[in-house]
C-alpha cells in the first residue's frame, strides 16, 4: 500500500478537531505521527505518515482540504554526504527518529533514510557539513 508523508498546518479554530481519528476511522488510513506541535487556540502543525489504498489517501486529503487544513507533501530529503562524514557521532544523540545511529563495533555512523523525519537537527549539529537538505 502506498505511503505518503504530509505536513498539516491548522489555523487556530481547528486545533481541537479530531483529525487523525477521522483519517483512521473514516478513511481507513494507518497514521504514524512523526512530529507534532499543537497549542490549543494557536496554529498547529503535524507531520504525518499515511499508509492506505490510493483512493482512501486521496479522499483523506480532500477531507483535510475541505476542513481548511493546509496540507503539503513532505518533500524534504535529507542527504548524508558520506565522503564528508568523519563519524564523530555528534549527530546521533540528537536524532529524534534514530535515523542516525552508531554501529558500536566499528564506532561508525549509519543513516537510515526511512526513519528520517527531516527535522534538520543533524544539519545544525554536523561540524563538517556532511548533512544537507534538498527540496
Amino acid at each position, binding site marked *: 500500500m502506498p505511503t505518503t508523508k504530509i505536513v498539516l498546518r491548522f489555523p487556530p479554530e481547528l486545533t481541537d478537531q479530531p483529525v487523525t481519528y477521522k483519517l483512521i476511522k473514516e478513511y481507513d488510513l494507518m497514521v504514524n505521527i512523526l512530529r507534532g506541535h499543537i497549542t490549543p487556540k494557536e496554529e498547529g502543525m503535524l507531520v504525518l505518515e499515511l499508509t492506505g489504498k490510493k483512493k482512501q489517501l486521496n479522499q483523506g486529503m480532500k477531507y483535510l482540504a475541505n476542513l481548511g487544513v493546509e496540507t503539503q507533501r513532505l518533500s524534504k530529503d535529507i542527504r548524508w554526504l558520506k565522503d564528508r562524514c568523519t*563519524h*564523530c*557521532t*555528534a549527530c*546521533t*544523540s540528537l536524532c529524534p527518529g534514530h535515523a542516525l545511529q*552508531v554501529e*558500536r563495533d566499528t564506532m561508525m555512523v549509519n543513516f537510515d533514510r526511512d526513519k528520517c523525519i527531516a527535522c534538520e*537537527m543533524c544539519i545544525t549539529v554536523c561540524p563538517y*557539513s556532511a548533512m544537507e537538505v534538498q527540496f
Partner: protein
Amino acid sequence: MKTVEEINEKIKKGKALVLTAEEVIDFVRQKGSKRAAEQVDIVTTGTFGPMCSSGAYFNVGHSKPRIKIGGGKAYLNGVPAYTGLAAVDIFLGATAIPDDDPRNAVFPGQFSYGGGHVIEELVAGKEVRLTATAYGTDCYPRKRIETRISLADMNEAVLFNPRNCYQNYNVAVNVSDRAIYTYMGVLQPRLGNANYCSAGQLNPLFCDPLYRTIGIGTRIFLGGGMGYVIWNGTQHNPCVPRTDLGMPRVPAGTIALIGDLKGMHPRWLRGTSFRGYGVNLTVGIGIPIPIVDEEILVQAAVRDEDIVTQIVDYSQSYPQRESESLGEVTYAQLKSGEITVDGKEVPTASLSSYAMAREIADILKEWIQGGQFFLAKCVQRLPSRDSGIVFKGLQEKPFRTRNPI
C-alpha cells in the same frame, strides 16, 4: 629494558612487533604484561578531533616590486591572517573568520568558513586568494597585492599548533531550560544529551600518561604526513588528580606540534564549524610509543573502562568558571551510548572520531612495519606531575589612570 635505538634497529630489519593501542589490550590479556613488554616493541595511538589552537605559517615569496606584508594586512580567501612577522611571512589561525562574518548577530551563527577551512583547501591543493595591503617603505615600495596562490607556489607552509591532543576532556551537559551552542556541540536542555571529546584508550597521551616517551622531538603522524612534538601545549596541566594507573581524571597534558603542510592530506585536516560558537580545525594525530619497559606497556594497554572524566554543566558552571563536577564516568560508559546523570539516562555522543583514530593507529603501524617511519627519541621531557605547574586563570588587574576625570 629496551632503548629507542634498539627498537629502530628492529624496524630497519623488519622485525619490530608493532601493535595498535587496541590490539595490545588483548595481547596483554593473553600473555601477561611482563612477557608482552618483552615481545612488543611499539604501540601506535591515534586521535582525530577539533583542536582550536592550530594554525599554519607561510612564506609566500617576494613580489616584484617587493611588498612588506609584515605590519600590514593580509587575507586568505577573505580570512584575516596575522602579519606581525617578516615581509612575506604570514600566520593563519584555525579560528580566524572573515571581517564581515555575521558571527552571532542572528543567533546561533553558522560560522561556515574560516581559517580551518582555508587550511583544508590549501592542503587539498586548491588555490586561494591572497589580498594584502602595506604602508610602503623605500625598500618595500609596493602597497597592494591580489593574487591566487597554492601551497606549491609557497616557499614554506608549516602547520604549527600551539595546543593539540588534549589529555582528557570534560563531558558537557546542559542543565538549563534552553538549548546552548558551545564548542562541545549543541547541548539540549535539562540534560538532554552529553557530549565528550576524546579517543579514550587510543589517545596518545592516555597511552603515555606521564609523558615518559612523548616529548620534544618525538616524531608523529600529523595531518596525514610526518610531524614532531615541539613543546608542551598551552594550558599543559600535569599536576592534576590521577588514577592509580596515572590517568588524569580531568583535562591535563597538551602538546604543541609542527609539520610540513605540503606533506599532509585533507582527510586528516578538516575545517570545522560549530553552530553558535565558531570555526575550528580538526586534526589527525598518531604517536608511536616505544615499549622501553613493562610500566609503559601497562599504560599503553589502558582500556576505556580504566579512564575517567568529569561531567560538567556548560550552561552555568563552565561559563562562570565554577569548578563543579556533576559526576565521574568512564570512557567505556560514554562509548556505550548512554550515561546516568542525577538519576537520568542521558544519550551520549562524541566530537572526536574514534573510527578515524583507529584508522590513524593502523596507518602509523603500516608506516613503521614498512620501514618508512623510525622513532625519534625525545630530546627534552615535557613537564610532568612533579613539575609544580599551577594552571592559572586570568586575574583582572585594572589599569591605573593618571588623571581620573
